[in-house]
């Protein structure tokens, strides 16, 4: 757990010092911002399947649920610090409408590493339980939701 936090912090630090820019960027950090938004969509797609089963909008299927949960866990374990370079937050010039990432993510007091660790823990529990029936899936949704909100509450602005 501590190792995961250290690895996460290290990758964020590396991401902070390695810029990947392309001559054809329409706006600063376009590559990273679009990648991380697409990455969030992958979370959403897989979570959507689990949620649809939990809500009763889709019939429960143990194999499909397990796949979706494993996908979420794999995504959480990706080393993705390079998608979050310092300076790519919404207060940067020109980025106010293009990203909802708040500058707090990169502050000295940021606990983004711990929050990521909590999400990973919740997803590990979900991956272990998703195939054990609808009740098990449902009872793990709360912790997964808390894991998502753990970052979204302090670090993402509401942008309509």
């Amino acid at each position, binding site marked *: 757990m501590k190792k995961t936090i250290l690895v996460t912090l290290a990758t964020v630090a590396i991401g902070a010092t390695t810029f990947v820019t392309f001559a054809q960027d329409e706006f600063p950090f376009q590559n990273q911002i679009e990648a991380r938004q697409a990455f969030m969509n992958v979370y959403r797609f897989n979570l959507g399947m689990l*949620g649809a089963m939990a809500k009763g909008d889709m019939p429960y299927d143990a194999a499909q649920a397990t796949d979706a949960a494993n996908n979420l866990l794999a995504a959480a374990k990706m080393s993705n610090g390079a998608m979050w370079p310092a300076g790519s937050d919404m*207060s940067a010039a020109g980025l106010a409408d293009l990203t909802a990432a708040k*500058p707090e993510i990169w502050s000295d007091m940021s606990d983004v590493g711990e929050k990521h660790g909590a999400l990973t823990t919740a997803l590990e529990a979900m991956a272990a339980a998703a195939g054990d029936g609808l009740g098990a899936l449902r009872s793990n949704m709360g912790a997964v939701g808390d894991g*998502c909100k753990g970052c979204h509450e302090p670090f*993402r602005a509401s942008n*309509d």
Partner: protein
Amino acid sequence: MPQPLDEDQVPAHTANLQNGELIFWAGGCASCHAAPGAENDDLLRLSGGVELATPFGVFRSPNISPDRESGIGDWSTLDFINAMVKGLSPDLQHYYPAFPYPYYQNINYIDLIDLKAYLDTLPPSTNQVADHDLSFPYSFRRGVGLWKWRYLAGNSSQADVAATAQLERGRYLVTGPGHCGACHTPRDAYGGELNNRFLAGAESFEVPEGEGAGSIPNITPHSDGIGDWSESDIAYSLESGFDPDFDSFGGSMVEVQENMARLPADDRAAIAIYLKSIPAHASEKD
């Protein structure tokens, strides 16, 4: 200038603490009055100190724990009702409407009696909170009297469909303790709500623009709002924090959702029914 209620306007009622607790969560009291960042059991220690940065200056929420010196332990039930429905302190000073009494005025007196009794059971705190830090002329508390004269009419919004018990419950929760419009309805320059755009979304007032602020969503049944959410989508989102696409709530809405998650499922369903019934408004384009 509202007059305070007097003792014979308070109905005789033996307090129901369970209902008081329901109103406590529906009203979001802990979100402003518990210490900043409080979680779990600390949410019940209402020591105050949350700061609200607005265009009028910084408001700081007071200690409303039952401590007799630092909180409101020496308040009578009548004092509490006057605060919630008239925005008046026990010594008849105006409260700033950062304390959302324009919504709490819609809560009935039975529920307020229950709520006060519940608050009296919570742990006391001796925390002292600094005064508000408001810019001129808002620092002039007596000016709130003028604001009230202009803005403190009855506040509820009429739904477009015939009332059922569940619709009425939903209306009560949204326009009363839920005070959803306090964020989701846009305001004019003096902080009065634009009732002809009820729940149609607003600019976030909490921080200066461009420094991590955002906008507050339209939650009317328009396609710009939540028009394609079903009633069960709305109720589920309040229970889980996920919207119908499984995007997660963020920012200030997380605390609200966690309060709503403590209500009975029927209450979330009632809120959903009411939100589907109010007038639909397109969002403002910048």
